[in-house]
């Protein structure tokens, strides 16, 4: 049965070139592994977590102090969640650089974008659950940013918060989204994502080089098992070890219990939204939280269909992509490390 299952994902024989690690850097596989790991650690945490404002914080403390290996479990879930955002981002970047989003892989690029958004929502909805000062105020700021969306903003904000301020209704909504909706959607879309890769003939191999066309027209094939399988298992083991090691050394932060009356100094939105928060300080709000993210998603959704030149993105598309990328990374880094109390520019050291 195992072999039947595997053969749905992978053909029996694969091109030898596909074994090269530098082709994918293992990023897609790494993301998949981490999502599965999150499912397992999340279910374990779910046995102890209570989604109600005061109990939530106490149950997280209980997990950390009373549950066997609870602290490690929470660390692992916390750090893997953050690492996942970075891995998914790099995975997307790699696919863009190797122009692997053009037909026949264009629909899969869109599925991937959906998965990327889901990972962001997963992380954001999980952010609130510990119900400490950090999570409470970071989420307050992030939801307040929605208020700047024209027409819909205020309504959306009130639906998400379930009132004027963050409270039991917000926590319940975030908990349900985080533990039910997102895992379900992720699992469904991942199946599609893998299936599309398989249908397009596996990972994209670099096109035959011009100088030796004769030799490379015929690809060499090897068996999937054990050639690729063994490499993948080894790589998965290394990634798991790295995550586990990091989680053993660094504890996930847990501040004081959330206090709606007291905003701590230098509170910030979750780090992946700090680009938007930074932008908010420089341009009109409606651009920072609505126009720019919308244009960004539309741009990413449209690139498989426009601006193609001989299987490569046109210079304009490349310029826009890398320009936006540099801006986004720059803004995010500024927001994370160069903003101190009261959003004053500071040196991180």
């Amino acid at each position, binding site marked *: 049965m195992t072999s039947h299952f595997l053969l749905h994902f992978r053909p029996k024989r694969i091109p030898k070139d596909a074994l090269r690690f530098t082709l994918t850097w293992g990023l897609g596989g790494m993301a998949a592994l981490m999502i599965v790991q999150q499912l397992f650690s999340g279910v374990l945490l779910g046995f102890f977590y209570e989604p109600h404002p005061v109990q939530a914080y106490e149950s997280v403390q209980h997990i950390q102090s009373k549950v066997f290996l609870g602290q490690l479990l929470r660390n692992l879930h916390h750090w893997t969640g953050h690492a996942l955002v970075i891995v998914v981002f790099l995975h997307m970047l790699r696919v863009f650089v190797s122009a692997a989003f053009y037909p026949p892989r264009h629909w899969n690029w869109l599925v991937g974008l959906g998965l990327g958004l889901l990972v962001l929502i997963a992380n954001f909805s999980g952010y609130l659950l510990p119900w400490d000062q950090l999570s409470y105020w970071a989420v307050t700021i992030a939801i307040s940013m929605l208020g700047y969306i024209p027409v819909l903003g205020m309504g959306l904000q009130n639906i998400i918060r379930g009132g004027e301020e963050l409270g039991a209704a917000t926590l319940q909504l975030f908990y349900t989204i985080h533990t039910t909706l997102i895992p379900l959607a992720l699992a469904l879309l991942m199946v599609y994502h893998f299936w599309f890769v398989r249908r397009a003939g596996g990972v994209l191999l670099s096109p035959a080089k011009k100088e030796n066309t004769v030799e490379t027209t015929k690809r060499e094939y090897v068996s999937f098992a054990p050639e690729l399988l063994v490499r993948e298992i080894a790589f998965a083991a290394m990634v798991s070890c790295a995550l586990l090691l990091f989680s053993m050394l660094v504890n996930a932060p847990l501040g004081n219990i959330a206090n709606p009356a007291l905003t701590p100094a230098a509170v910030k939105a979750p780090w992946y939204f700090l680009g938007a928060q930074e932008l908010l300080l420089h341009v009109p709000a409606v651009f920072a939280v609505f126009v720019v993210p919308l244009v960004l998603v539309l741009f990413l959704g449209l690139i498989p269909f426009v601006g193609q030149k001989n299987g490569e993105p046109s210079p304009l598309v490349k310029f826009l992509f890398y320009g936006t990328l540099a801006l986004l990374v720059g803004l995010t880094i500024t927001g994370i490390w160069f903003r101190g109390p009261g*959003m004053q520019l500071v040196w991180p050291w």
Partner: protein
Amino acid sequence: MAMVKTPQPTSRRGFLTRLWIGLGVVAFLQILATTVLSLLSGRKRSQTGQDQIIEVGKLSDFPPGSVTFIALGHLYLCHLDTGGFLAISRKCTHLGCAIPWVTERKQFECPCHASVFDITGKVLKSPAPRALDLYPISFKRNQVTINIGKSIKRSTFKTEQLAHPQELS
């Protein structure tokens, strides 16, 4: 030469297929509608828009120039030196952080993005886009009451926003 197209009679199978698809769409819409309705109706939420009057104390408890935090309403009751009361929301209009009153400098200073407001809630320093929200105040027999169910949005401070106890006496 144009051929007159005779309309093809729908086969039984074609009719049934369309019927199933149609019923499926109806069923889907029903499930969608009931889901949305149940989600909207059943959520616990804080009372907003409805009157929610709280008594905060006697007039003499709030001398001119004082700023008192009213924990129950998450607001400040400000009595200006020039007379007149304002019930000012604690929530920054920029990104919703809770704003403390800084007694030394006599102003509200947001810890998140350093917006500054004066005692009337007027913006002294951006990024806050507008003045802090207000709540309606009324005076009953020397008692100050505030309607915390109704927040009033405003762009800046105007003198007609002030509540005066003598107006009623």
